[in-house]
């Protein structure tokens, strides 16, 4: 075999790929900035952050899952369930903050079940979490009997709609979740195992990484952050309903992928997810500002997400050759 190092061209390409979402974000900001007077204002920026905060909490966990080349399709239903459980337990006069603790534990436990089913039984994660989404959704319906619950934990109300020093608690919780996620991924052994498991599971196993345990844990983390989003989210909505966050699934996964985290694992991270969240937030918000036909909004968002997926796959396909 010829002993020649590959040209640095591929590294340039690699960087271009890594930065593509950033250019997309800047282009969107420039575009909406030009076409709308109200877009580039501090107040509107606050709006955007507020709009993506719940997605950010959920997206943190999804980032972990995608990095191991798995997927979690149950996160939005898990959020709904956690909200319902917290409200239900509050209505049942469980002392605070136990309703929140129980809600988060229920979510984490269900995530653990999906994780074990995926990692140890070999059920593909898209299927195990799809089934789990039905279980979560079913539990939500069963607990609420279809009604709306208004008894919320006070902490949920504070974190969901309160402010401190003029900043929304919700945004702070989201930022902290992202920060903790980032620190874990970058500065712990577990974080490294997550990346390596996704990059090449066989090689990770050869190096002594317990890849099954890693996959189980990322599913727990995804369910936990989804639960957190639900517990905080009911505070923002002011009630817990049996379908409160169900619609967030595509946005939450979409944001992570838009940021550039690979669907094939091993590449990406929280900074990418932040960019992806901002792209989605700017797009949603900007489309409201410019006078686009409101019925076209979802279509446009869909097209952009699809383009990002094509991009993601094309670059991932390159590494095979």
């Amino acid at each position: 075999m010829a002993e020649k190092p590959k040209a640095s061209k591929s590294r340039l390409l690699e960087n271009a790929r890594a930065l593509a979402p950033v250019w997309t974000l800047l282009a969107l900001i420039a575009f909406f900035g030009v076409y709308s007077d109200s877009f580039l204002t501090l107040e509107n920026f606050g709006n955007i952050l507020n709009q993506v905060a719940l997605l950010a909490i959920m997206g943190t966990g999804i980032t972990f899952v995608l990095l191991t080349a798995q997927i979690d399709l149950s996160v939005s239903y898990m959020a709904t369930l956690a909200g319902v459980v917290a409200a239900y337990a509050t209505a049942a006069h469980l002392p605070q903050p136990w309703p929140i603790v129980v809600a988060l534990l229920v979510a984490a436990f269900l995530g653990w079940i999906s994780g074990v089913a995926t990692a140890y039984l070999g059920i593909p994660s898209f299927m195990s979490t799809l089934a789990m989404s039905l279980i979560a959704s079913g539990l939500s319906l069963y607990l609420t009997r279809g009604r709306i619950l208004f008894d919320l934990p006070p902490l949920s109300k504070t974190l969901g709609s309160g402010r401190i020093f003029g900043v929304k608690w919700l945004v702070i919780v989201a930022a902290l979740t992202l920060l903790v996620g980032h620190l874990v991924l970058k500065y712990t052994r577990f974080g490294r195992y997550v990346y390596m498991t996704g990059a090449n599971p066989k090689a990770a196993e050869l190096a002594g990484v317990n890849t099954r345990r890693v996959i189980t844990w990322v599913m727990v983390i995804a369910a936990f952050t989804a639960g957190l989003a639900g517990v905080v989210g009911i505070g923002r909505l002011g009630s817990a309903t049996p379908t409160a966050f169900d619609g967030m699934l595509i946005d939450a996964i979409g944001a992570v992928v838009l940021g550039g985290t690979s669907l094939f694992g091993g590449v990406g991270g929280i900074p990418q997810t932040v960019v992806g969240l901002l792209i989605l937030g700017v797009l949603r918000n900007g489309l409201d500002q410019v006078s686009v036909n409101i019925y076209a909004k979802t279509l446009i968002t869909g097209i952009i997400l699809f383009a990002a997926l094509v991009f993601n796959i094309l670059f991932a396909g390159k590494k095979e050759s």
Partner: protein
Amino acid sequence: MEPLLRLTQVKKRFGGIEALKGIDFDVYPGEVHALVGENGAGKSTMMKILAGVIPDYAGEMAYKGRPLRLKNPKEALDLGIAMIHQELSVMPELSVAENIFLGRQPTRGRVVDWRRMNAEARRILEALGYPQVEVERPLGDYPLGVHQLAEIARALTSGAELIIMDEPTSALSPMETERLLALVRRLAEQGKAIVYISHFLEEVTAVADRVTVLRDGEKVATLRAEETDKSELVRLMLGREAQFFERAELAPRARAGEPALELFGLSRPRAFEGVDLAIYPGEIVGLYGLIGSGHFELAETVFGLARPNAGQIRVAGKPLRGGPRRAIREGLAYVPPSRRTGLFLEKPVYQNVSLPWLDRLFGPLRELAAAREVTHQVGLRPPDPTRDVGAFSGGNQQKVAIARWLVEPPKVFLASEPTRGMDVGAKDEVLSILRRMADAGTAVLLVSSEPETILAAADRILVMAKGRIVAEYTSGEVTKEMLVHDAAGKLKKTA
């Protein structure tokens, strides 16, 4: 009688390399004509020409007396030339009968005529001497020998007159092998022409009428099988006197203390059986075998990547069970035969190196320092542990795969094909790294299908064939010829 197929002065080059340098070859109806040679001798190129896979070659081919130039495998098949590959193309989920009639199921109107299909399948299998196979059952219920049978039956029902078989017995048990050889003879008696390609020379001399030996793209000889034997074939295959890298002088070594690794009757189905082995600190034991002989699987199993179904592994006297993590903790290290499975090509060198040691080595600075140290020891070029592994040449990637285990020198190092695809210089470097590890007290098991690699480095040599250790050399001169001879296997004789 005229030959069914005749090649005259067939030549083929790939770029600058002449794979076939003018081959004459023929096979008659009712004859088994075996084709033997080392890897790279030109067997597969010739086979691909016969089967229509390679259409552009120089020279003539004649089939049933008429000149023929095959453009694609389909054309070959239509003319009655069928090829049975080493990797079988069967569908284990489908029934035996469906596999036999794959793509050509007898139909009534537009629906499959199951009754007729099953009946015909039964008839064929009976004619082939396998009346006990139930054709309605999924093929996957049967052992590999029956899969092979289904492919042969498929070739026959499609009207094949010439059947090319590539290493048909490499995955078969001794009993299945015997039955297959009997089947091949029966096919010949029924007038079929068989081209039989195999590394297992005793099978070749047992089953073939004639044997053609290829070496470096040339035909060395065509012999009558009853007039030759395994030793002569090995000599013809290897040709010239053994060169310095094709022989080794083993000196018995004084063994220090207890064995670092012991295997007692280790078995894994379809891989190896009843392997006993002891390796001592400081020695390099070469484990040679043909691809498919079970030697790679043995190393993999010892490292905990697969579970043995019988036997015991002991490291420094202590029984070892469990996965790779446990194995690493007990002082084992392993390099897999393929770089792709062992390395993270898109991650920097230092992360590849540090992964097994993160318990005590986490943090970019410490990891980098350790990676610098060990990549220096193996002579990584360029010596930059922050570059992605994928940006290095193949030889240097392999150095990374080895360097990882120098962070904490292992008790036992299982190195599968550590020099595959390397040039001579890189090869020497890697083998001298293994020697240094051994000198520092590691017991090295060097697993390879390249006799040269084994001879260049081993203190002691074991040969594996069909899942068993068939020979051991501890002292005196060993040549490539001897290793190839052992690996070419013995045919189990039964009354």
